[in-house]
């Protein structure tokens, strides 16, 4: 493995060994403290534009599995790890993490003091970085000059509708860069799903006469999406049961008058206790928060806070007072992360059931 470097905007240089693709990439550095599920994480489109630092000490130890894709064409900008193991476990013994990343032109760098890096990002806040062959002035110039696109959703969401037929409730999923876990959970519950592009209009949705609408997860800032998306949400929520996750949750909050703030440091992990306010239960789920709802801006005549992170105090769920419309910031689909909240999908099904 060739020596490569992770360089950060603040001038720091981390030498390591390259794996995966040999590409030079630039992205925002985020860290994920999940102990399992490297494949689910790296294939999640929320990491478009981002280089993911894994605190789990070893990745690659179970290869690449057919049932652990969160997208087929991942667009993360890189993996930063302490150790990578080259193992293939599929039937052909032919797809290790290393090979997979090569195929998708995603670079990885191993042998990094990821704990130090995480502690450093903790101090600096979110920061840009590059994985490069040579850590010279030129590389830093390139890094500083790179402007990351804010059109992430358009880049990863499906450009045209597609169906996932089944016998149950008719659900429209608006794709902002969805993770497959969402489709898997709907499929498990027999939903007849149509996935629409992120810029679908309310009329496009209504034309399909759905029992429910799901706003998916996705990358980037909700503030970068046009007002038309919020209009669509406002129209839909009055007529059709609505469930929103991740970026969808942020959009749902925006559509209902709340403001979104960017965290100084994003939190990615499944170890924070989340209080389900209505019953006081504690659950754990994969959280991926970079943008959160500002609690002071919630219009309490319209929205009820339903979930709260007990470690950082962030809003993790909302529900509309007047309509069967609700949202969660965390990922309830358990891919990766605990299944503690997977029955939120059942809630969605049951809400659709009452509207028959």
């Amino acid at each position, binding site marked *: 493995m060739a020596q490569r470097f992770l360089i950060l905007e603040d001038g720091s240089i*981390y030498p390591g060994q390259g794996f995966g693709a040999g590409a030079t990439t630039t992205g925002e550095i985020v*860290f994920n*403290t*999940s*102990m*399992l*599920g490297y494949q*689910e994480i790296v294939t999640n489109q929320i990491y478009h534009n981002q280089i993911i630092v894994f*605190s*789990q*000490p*070893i990745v690659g*130890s*179970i290869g690449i*599995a057919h*049932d*652990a894709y969160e997208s087929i064409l991942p667009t993360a900008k890189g993996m930063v790890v*302490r*150790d990578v*193991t*080259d*193992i293939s476990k599929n039937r052909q013994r032919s797809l290790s993490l290393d090979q997979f990343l090569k195929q998708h032109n995603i670079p990885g760098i191993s042998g990094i*003091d*990821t*704990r*130090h890096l*995480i*502690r450093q990002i*903790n101090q600096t806040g979110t920061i840009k970085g590059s994985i490069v062959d040579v850590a010279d002035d030129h590389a830093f110039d390139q890094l500083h000059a790179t402007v990351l696109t804010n059109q992430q959703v358009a880049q990863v969401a499906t450009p045209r509708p597609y169906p996932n037929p089944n016998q149950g409730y008719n659900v429209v999923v608006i794709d902002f860069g969805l993770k497959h876990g969402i489709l898997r959970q709907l499929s498990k519950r027999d939903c007849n799903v149509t996935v629409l592009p992120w810029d679908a209009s309310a009329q496009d949705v209504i034309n399909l006469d759905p029992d429910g609408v799901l706003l998916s997860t996705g990358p980037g800032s909700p503030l970068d999406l046009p007002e038309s998306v919020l209009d669509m949400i406002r129209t839909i929520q009055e007529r059709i049961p609505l469930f929103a996750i991740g970026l969808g949750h942020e959009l749902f909050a925006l559509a209902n008058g709340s403001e979104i703030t960017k965290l100084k440091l994003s*939190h990615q*992990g*499944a*170890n*924070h*206790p989340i*209080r389900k306010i209505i019953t*006081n*239960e*504690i659950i*754990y789920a994969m959280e991926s928060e970079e943008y959160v709802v500002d609690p002071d801006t919630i219009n309490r005549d319209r929205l009820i806070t339903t979930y709260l992170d*007990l*470690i950082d105090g962030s809003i993790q769920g909302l529900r509309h007072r007047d309509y069967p419309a609700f949202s969660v910031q965390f990922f309830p689909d*358990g*891919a*990766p*992360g*605990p*299944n503690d909240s997977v029955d939120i999908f059942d809630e969605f099904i049951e809400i659709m059931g009452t509207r028959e």
Partner: protein
Amino acid sequence: MATEIQKILIIGGGPTEIGHETELDAACVQIIQALKKYGIRSLLIDNNPFSAALEDVQPANMFIQAVTADNVQRIIEKEHPDAILATVGGVTAISVIQELQENGVLADNEVQTLGIPADAMMDINNPDRLNDVMRNVGMPVIASETVGTLDEAINVANKIGYPVIVKPIAPRIDTNRMLCETEADMISAVSRGLSWSRFKQCVIEQSIVGYKEIELVSMRDTMGTQVLVAGLENIDPIGIHSGDSMVVTPTLTLSNAEYEALRDTAFAINNQFRFTGVVHTHFALRADGESFYVTKVTPYNDRGTSLAATATGYPIAYVAASLYLNQKLTDVHLPDIYHFKQTALLEPSLDHVVVRIPLWPFEDVTNADQHLGTVMKSVGSTIGVGRSAEEAILKALRSSQFSPQDELPSMSNLTDTQIISQLIHPLSNRILVLLEALRRGYQVDELNELTKIDPFYFVKFKHILDIEEDIRMHPMTIDALHEGRYYGFGDGMIARMWQTDIDQVRQLGRNNQISPTYKGIEPSAGELQDLPTAYYSTFELENESEQLSDKTILVLGRGGNQLGPNASADYFTTEMLKQLRKSGYQTVIMNTNPNAGSLTATLSDKQIIDPVQLGDIMNVIGIEHPVKIFVPGNRHYLTRELRRRDYSISILPPDQEKRSELLNDHANIGLDLFVAEDHIVPILASDLRSDQGIATTLDQITLMRTPATLTDQQLDKILAHAKEYLGAHKRTGMVQMLYTTNGKQAPQFAGVRPTRLTTIAYLNKVTGINWVRMLVRQALGELDEDLIAKWAVDIYSDRRSQVRGTFPFKQLQLPDQLGLTTQEVGARISFETF
């Protein structure tokens, strides 16, 4: 209900044996600490002289008695505790509580059980009833039936088909499972199992040998809130007892989906039983991950929970104590030193790997069968912590060897036939055999097939060998040194490979800034900034461990538990730490035993979990610059090497090096004394016996009984002799003068030896004076006339007591034999009645 609890009777773990060592007592110490915070009075019954928990309760609350239903009943009837706690007493305690529940003693005296609800108590050690519960919550269960006779057993086994597993129901000892390939095996196992079962029943079940064994450790409060603390992965498959298996945490070869399914199941079971506190759930996974079974549920502290606590920094026992009192997980407040002040609800996320390797009794009990199987044989364990699997494996391996010189024994003399045989029927040295097999070119798939160990580990073992080869080929090069250290090779090992001495290696490291970086052992994987008290070393960019103070003392822990004096060493170390702190020093402890009480975070200012080997010690010294290094017991090689480098060493008890001066290899009277500068203080005279009567050699003396069968005249005579002798022969600390007598005749001087650690623990309990602390104070120069004058030792006391070593022969399936001091696995102490 539980809010009214004011008095709790805690059932201690009893003498150390195969199946449990110091982890129960260590958990007990934490629980007593927590209960004290809530203003609750703890009563403790235990007869383990090496119990540190016994030091933490008032004499009035201390019941030094064997843990039996009768004794516990007597205490209940006399003391009327509000509640009884069995979760730090292992299977014995559970069995005692079951008995007291059945005979109505608990109900009659209105004593509630903590942690395990009364109706669950009967189910947890009964595989049959556990299966019923599994069916209720919709879990797959292994085909099994309960039998009470050999005939039934034969019928059932034929029906299920061999191989079968035999498990005694409600066993009195920690037996786990016995694998039987043939009817003959099965008959022998059932006969034994029936005799161990309190109900004279066994379960015969379908064999799941070769499955992957995974353990989860979780916490649950009365509200039903749950936290998963850790997942433990047995590197060895089912078929080798999990206590004898190499274990790694976090799990490294499970997919997210597999892991979460186990988590869901563990939580569902905890809810079904309404456990509170800590629960340790065992699973067997089919290699393809498609299905799994629950094999064991232990809602109490054990080696699994203590490994989870040590690996994550989550104070399991402390939190559990709060949960027993109906505290919610959201409200538990931890002592300040626990860095994750947020709540006890943060699910630990690790950025390091911990590997546990068992330690064996076979060096001392040479006639035991060394094959690993479903009956546990190891007596202790040691862990390695690293940032990679290689580093953690190597560190654990280095700490698990008997040789003091940081080296791994060679297996190169094994024939190929022996290798194959040992791959299929593993012996205690299995990891070294696995490495040797790889060295000889066995392929990963082939080894996976033979051993059922996940290929991932062979890839890692192979990498270790590649690095080893690389180091060997590039002597005294910077890159090789860096690579070696980065992956966990010790300086001693590298020096040997380079045929140089360790100082050369360290010099090379120093000159090229290849310095150790200590990383915190904490549960947030670096997300939260507070620093913990526990660290391990690696060789990366950032060092998180700064010098504590200019008044620091480094204590070298004894590492994993082994037979012989080591059984008491952890007690000794714990008391040492308490005194050093009291005397105003900051303390750093190095240790590798995940079960050690001495690693409890509240006892020292910093805990370093690294091999207690020369290079690693010097690394710690390089940061801490301790004013002194304390060594409990003696480690000749290490102390010699450290002294050679001009470090100030205190070996306690002192004079270990002077060893014994013996005129005779036989003695039946011992007189223990404390020897200070100007004082010789007699402590106790006792009869010395073997376990089976007269001891014909000194190493057979494993029983001490007091008062000694001496007339006052005889006693006075040996007192006078001892004082005279010790006045003339310079010794310090504690010594045991040895005499022989046949009753009438005047005792003959037989020799003098340093007082054994085991004996010191006994003397503490008999005299009520903590002699370990006195030795520490002596070493610190704090002994003075006033203090010595306060020792009220009545050498003529006629209070009857005895301490007697316990041996692992039964668990090792050996006939009862005369035990030697080197074979002691623990000891039990008793007063008044024998």
